């Protein structure tokens, strides 16, 4: 598969960007470069000028932001295929978070100028970008609501339900290598000890069971109720 076919394939798997005219895809492909990152490598750091937009082709990444108090807060976990780094490019600011490869990752890097030049010329592309950004706004509204209004147990219940997979008749959340307790704590905006207590509480209530390879959701309905508290 050549560069054009590869990035076209990636664009077609991104919600809202999957029906862009060939000409736009061609322009994006012409300027895009594919780069590999190993586990733990930094794709960009917060406070760095936003010079590129990224399309995640393979592997998981996380976006975090350091609080004023020096605590890492997860903003987003992304899996392929997804676009990131766009908010800072469109607002002309620095990247608001740091993006780290959680496993072996392939990323398309597209110069910001390519995207910014396309927007005024192609209203269909602009509309697609607006829809994508709108979804990001909704994500952050949800994150603010979670962090400010919900308990750690409720956040944990919601996060587990959002990431659950049906496996041999059981609803489970697989424990990827990078899904350590520390990572989960960052994701939930808390610390490891509090997360450990929350897991124990939910386990004691019969809502879930923590295993080495997975967290088994024994009572999804009960977890949903806990998530709304």
């Amino acid at each position: 598969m050549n560069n054009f076919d590869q990035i076209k394939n990636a664009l077609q798997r991104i919600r809202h960007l999957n029906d862009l005219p060939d000409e736009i895809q061609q322009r994006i492909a012409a300027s895009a470069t594919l780069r590999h990152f190993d586990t733990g490598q930094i794709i960009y750091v917060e406070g760095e000028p936003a010079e590129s937009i990224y399309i995640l082709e393979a592997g998981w990444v996380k976006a975090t932001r350091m609080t004023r108090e020096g605590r890492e807060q997860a903003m987003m976990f992304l899996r392929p295929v997804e676009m990131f780094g766009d908010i800072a490019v469109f607002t002309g600011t620095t990247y608001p978070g740091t993006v780290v490869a959680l496993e072996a990752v392939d990323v398309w890097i597209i110069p910001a100028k390519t995207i910014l030049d396309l927007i005024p010329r192609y209203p269909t592309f602009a509309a697609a970008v607006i829809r994508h950004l709108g979804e990001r706004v909704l994500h952050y509204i949800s994150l603010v609501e979670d962090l400010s209004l919900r308990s750690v147990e409720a956040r944990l219940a919601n996060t587990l339900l959002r990431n659950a997979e049906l496996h041999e008749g059981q609803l489970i959340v697989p424990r990827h290598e990078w899904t350590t307790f520390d990572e989960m704590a960052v994701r939930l905006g808390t610390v490891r000890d509090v997360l450990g207590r929350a897991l124990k509480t939910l386990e004691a209530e019969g809502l879930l069971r923590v295993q080495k390879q997975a967290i088994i959701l024994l009572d999804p309905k009960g977890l949903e109720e806990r998530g709304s508290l």
Partner: protein
Amino acid sequence: MMMSETTPNPDEQLRTRIIQALMLDERTAALDLRVGALNGIAHLAGTVASLDVRDAAQELAECVRGVRGVVNRIEAPGAPSPSRNIRLLFPPVQEDNDMENK
């Protein structure tokens, strides 16, 4: 309030000073490091050959006026990975440009 394009915000100025400090030191001048600054916290990334150089980059950033802390994510043999710990040099202040960076 939107930050004017002609007025560099404090973090941009801080980032420039950190880059200058790294460029002026012979241990870090030739390195290709990524540098960010947000809310007075410096963020460093990239790859270097030794822990000593990694530590040197952090020390240089910490010495820059206005830096409240350094998140050192520079890769080096034997370095913690991923490093997310930060030692704040000064406590957080309320009056800054946080909203404008979101």
